[in-house]
């Protein structure tokens, strides 16, 4: 399979699935203001997913549109990291998941600004502005709740402990990542890993949260081996198009 296509699908699926997850908060946010903040971020991510999947489809050259890729692939064909498909659970889980992902996404898009693929560099230029805000938002909530009350710290620590195992996959390169980086199209994850670790360590410290140690890192999402959660996400997301293919607003 074409490396660049595979690489773009990973980026696009990360954005698409996390967007879908955040969208679940719509109408259920803890307060109106954060409800809107969540759906705002969800829409930013959806915009990134559209650009990435559209471009992936064009490169593949088999006539697949963004909609074909979003609505007519099955779970094993999705290439998002396991982290973004994890359930919202509560506000603490949602914020920790967002913070882990935003930190990765920020450094990743920073690197992609220099991509040899001009179209991808252009997408990165648009996305980096959005992601910079997302990271600021999730970092502040990490500190606010971590260094908050006893209850809020406890909830945040639980979320950090539970989600930590899904954080390693983001910055652990496999063959596709290596090939993409070598060709100058993709970002070098080996360079992003220390940046991610540094940022996360500094925010956890500021938030008075402990960094989990000796945790086995889950992986497989990037290769299409997903947790059961993805199937349920797709069932909801794809239902209309699967039932009425080509249906429009």
């Amino acid at each position, binding site marked *: 399979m074409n490396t660049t296509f595979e690489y773009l699908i990973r980026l696009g699926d990360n954005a698409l699935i996390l967007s879908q997850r955040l969208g679940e908060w719509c109408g259920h946010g*803890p*307060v*109106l*203001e*954060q409800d*809107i*903040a969540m759906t*705002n971020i969800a829409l930013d991510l959806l915009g990134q997913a559209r650009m990435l999947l559209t471009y992936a489809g064009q490169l593949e050259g088999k006539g697949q549109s963004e909609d074909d890729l979003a609505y007519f692939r099955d779970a094993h064909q999705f290439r998002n990291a396991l982290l973004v498909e994890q359930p919202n659970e509560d506000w603490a889980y949602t914020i920790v998941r967002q913070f882990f992902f935003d930190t990765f996404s920020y450094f990743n898009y920073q690197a992609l600004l220099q991509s040899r693929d001009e179209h991808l560099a252009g997408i990165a230029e648009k996305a980096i502005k959005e992601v910079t805000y997302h990271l600021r*938002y999730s970092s*502040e909530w990490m500190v*606010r709740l971590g260094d908050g009350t006893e209850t809020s710290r406890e909830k945040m620590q639980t979320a950090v402990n539970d989600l930590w195992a899904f954080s390693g996959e983001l910055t652990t390169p496999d063959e596709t990542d290596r090939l993409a980086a070598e060709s100058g199209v993709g970002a070098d994850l080996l360079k992003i890993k220390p940046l991610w670790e540094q940022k996360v360590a500094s925010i956890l410290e500021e938030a008075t949260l402990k960094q989990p140690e000796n945790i086995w890192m889950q992986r497989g999402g990037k290769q299409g081996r997903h947790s059961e959660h993805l199937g349920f996400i797709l069932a909801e997301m794809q239902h209309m198009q699967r039932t009425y293919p080509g249906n429009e607003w």
Partner: protein
Amino acid sequence: MKDWPLWEIFIRSKQGLSHKHVGSLHAADAQMALENARDVYCRRNEGISIWVVESAHIHASTEDPEAFFDPANDKVYRHPTFYDLPDEVKHM
């Protein structure tokens, strides 16, 4: 979250000269109020600058408006409407 104070939000648009009151929202502190305002009131590119002010810090006139503002009503000479404008002057 029930204890979060109310904040009044003022937005200056690109063309606007001054900040305009657009509404209010709840937030724990000024930083959160600014971010909430960005998300709640600037989703469609409405502004380039935001002010937030805790509602409790705003002092409003409470007098009966008729009595309070009445002295202004009978002084028509405060409006510059008694001048004849030359035809050459436009946009007045």
